[in-house]
């Protein structure tokens, strides 16, 4: 799939709704920050130097062995994409918001299945990312590690014996590793247990954020949990810490779901059924309402109350109903009202 296909399609392989523990864990992501040793960090580079960084990485990608996985990786300059297309890549969690700023000097590498993406000249020269469906942090790390090994054969990384991989921001130094899981916790939110759970998570060196990263409010009962500290622990330890905390969260969420369904069966079926009804029949709907209705729908699928909708469709609808995709579909900048109408149309069509 070329980048052009990617931005025309809301689907990305992490959205399949498959993978281990997919009733709670939507996706797992690992990202490693790397810098080249003979260049200043991206924010200090002039445009020519920034292009040299992109060129050096493209050479390293060409040097990868023929049997390397994933196959051929190509660089796409951000400037070649329209603003909507760039935003769609953000909405699909393939690049960060930072790559939209000053986009003339930034680029992205995407694998065919979109599991691997490498951002170039973001805050660091390289940000190697792997995103997989369900609870697959270990294999995400293995894939990132493999690509890192291959690139390292050609590239000279900025590395210090003491501090490890050197990064523009000292909060990423060391392993340069940020692991995160996106979890759907409707029952913990509904029973208000989440208020006790979240503070205890932050005591374990982890951070909780909303769906679209730093500074965003949680919507649709979706939370992103990631490691805070990148120095002093091995990559495996960082991954394992997040895995074990996520497993506990998973158990608590499942227990809460069972208890809710046992105690308040009619109430749950009613809530889920109503949300499904609204999604199928509304003519005007805001993004925030969609997110909370889709959360109910997803819970209904997991509780086997709703059987004719796939988890994949729910994940796709989250991206399809965001501003960038709606504008792209319409071929123009829509007003808030026009968007709410268009959004309702798309959902009715898909359901």
């Amino acid at each position, binding site marked *: 799939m070329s980048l052009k296909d990617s931005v025309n399609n809301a689907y990305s392989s992490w959205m399949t709704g498959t993978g281990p523990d997919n009733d709670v864990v939507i996706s797992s992501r690992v990202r490693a920050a790397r*810098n080249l040793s003979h260049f200043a960090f991206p*924010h200090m580079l002039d445009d020519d130097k920034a292009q040299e960084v992109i060129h050096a990485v493209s050479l390293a990608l060409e040097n990868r062995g023929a049997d390397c996985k994933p196959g051929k990786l190509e660089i796409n300059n951000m400037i070649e994409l329209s603003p909507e297309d760039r935003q769609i890549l953000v909405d699909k969690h393939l690049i960060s918001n930072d790559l939209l700023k000053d986009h003339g000097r930034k680029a992205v590498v995407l694998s065919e299945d979109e599991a691997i993406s490498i951002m170039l000249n973001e805050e660091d020269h390289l940000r190697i990312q792997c995103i997989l469906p369900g609870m697959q942090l270990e294999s995400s790390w293995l894939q990132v590690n493999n690509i890192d090994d291959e690139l390292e054969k050609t590239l000279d*990384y900025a*590395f210090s014996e003491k501090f490890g991989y050197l990064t523009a921001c000292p909060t990423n*130094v060391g392993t340069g590793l940020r692991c995160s899981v996106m979890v759907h916790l409707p029952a913990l939110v509904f029973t208000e247990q989440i208020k006790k759970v979240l503070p205890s998570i932050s005591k374990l060196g982890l951070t909780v954020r909303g769906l679209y990263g730093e500074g965003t409010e949680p919507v649709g009962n979706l939370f992103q949990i990631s490691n805070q500290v990148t120095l002093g622990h091995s990559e495996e330890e960082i991954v394992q810490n997040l895995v074990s905390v996520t497993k506990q969260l998973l158990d608590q969420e499942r227990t809460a779901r069972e208890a809710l369904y046992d105690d308040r069966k009619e109430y749950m079926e009613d809530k889920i059924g109503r949300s499904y009804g609204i999604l199928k029949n509304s003519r005007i709907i805001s993004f925030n309402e969609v997110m909370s209705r889709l959360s109910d729908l997803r819970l209904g699928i997991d509780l086997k109350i709703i059987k004719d909708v796939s988890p994949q469709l729910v994940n796709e609808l989250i991206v399809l109903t965001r501003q960038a995709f709606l504008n792209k579909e319409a071929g123009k900048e829509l007003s808030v009202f026009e968007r709410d109408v268009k959004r309702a149309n798309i959902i009715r069509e898909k359901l």
Partner: protein
Amino acid sequence: MLCERCQKKEATVFYTEIINGQKKQLNLCEECAKELHSQGFDFMPQLNFHNFLGSILGHNISNFTKTSLGANKCEVCGLSEEEFAQKGLLGCGNCYENFGNTLDSLVRSIHGTNIHNGKVPEKTSDRVKYKKEIESLRSQLKQAVAKEQYENAAKIRDSIKEIEKRLEQEG
């Protein structure tokens, strides 16, 4: 006053953000405010993380090198400590060396440590790898002894000796 965003409607929502003493004001109409809010734009003043980091360092600097402020620059990329305090981003890999103690204590306050314990690039000399391996084996040895797993401890001790020998041979 017209809304700054659409330039069409009267602004009725006034949003003020103060970061590090810098005041930013945003005057919006109700519709634009609603829209920004639905896109996750938070109407609570947000703490910009990089500024925050910088200000911690800035505080360190003012205590540390008040007399030579501005003179302390990275020799390689030219970034001054003052600029780092503003941006919260270092200029190049060499800054880590060149900003010495100030940075060292900052790294320690962020991560609780200042020693990398993870992956080492293949290309970096084997020496680094051996040293790291020995460190990790030593901590395993301590654990084994603490758990009274003496057989295991003996094995670990032997591996440490072997690596130390290799280190010496390669000098």
